[in-house]
């Protein structure tokens, strides 16, 4: 397993469509992240693009076999930070909506740890803002991952 934490794409010309958002734009989840639900949160008739990022759990780390990750989250602060990230993105890019869902607890190899979706009238803003969002999250969201190996575990310091 060598899945990296990078999967991004833009969907140009998607139009409005879809059901109305039913979830908060920012969430810490104990269950599975639903990427389609995160995308649905940002769909907007004024937007021609939705860019997404999925973080997925890699099965190896620095040559060691990883059995699973365990995420710890300081939830209220993390949600405040997500909203702050969205404000910063709006100051830098012409984006419409931002949604971030991040896991807490055990995530198996191959599982989705985070989904970010950003909508914008133009794809360039959507793609750049989505990339900026995951960098902000990795730098300033109070979330910690523990890598669990066959013979122990390690809290990852920075990422």
């Amino acid at each position, binding site marked *: 397993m060598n899945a990296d934490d990078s999967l991004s794409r833009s969907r140009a010309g998607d139009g409005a469509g879809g059901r109305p958002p039913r979830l908060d734009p920012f969430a810490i989840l104990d269950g599975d992240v639903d990427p389609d639900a995160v995308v649905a949160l940002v769909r907007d008739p004024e937007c021609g693009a939705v860019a997404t990022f999925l973080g997925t759990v890699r099965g190896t780390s620095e040559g060691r076999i990883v059995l699973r990750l365990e995420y710890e989250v300081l939830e209220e*602060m993390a949600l405040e930070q997500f909203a702050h990230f969205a404000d910063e993105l709006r100051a830098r890019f012409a984006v419409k909506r931002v949604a971030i869902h991040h896991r807490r607890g055990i995530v198996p190899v191959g599982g989705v740890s985070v989904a970010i979706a950003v909508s914008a009238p133009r794809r360039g803003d959507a793609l750049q803002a989505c990339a900026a969002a995951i960098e902000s999250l*990795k730098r*300033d969201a109070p979330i910690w991952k523990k890598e669990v190996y066959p013979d122990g575990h390690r809290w990852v310091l920075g990422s």
Partner: protein
Amino acid sequence: MRVVVRLHAGVRERAGRPTLEVEVGEGARVRDVRDAVERACPGIAGQLGSCRWALRDAFVAADAPVPPGAPLDVIPPVSGG
């Protein structure tokens, strides 16, 4: 005044406890709380240098004043995503 300090992730694990309380003077700054935590829990003193601090769900600087009654969070290097 007594300040509740909440520990997370590897720092909590190293300390073996999720919170601790320290005594600091009125008008104390975050750095004074940090110094008190180092004295109260020497086992995590080596980790605190790489940690940030948070108050009421926002990062705070070392020279920020600590209001009475508000817990402080020790934020080890983060690794979300």
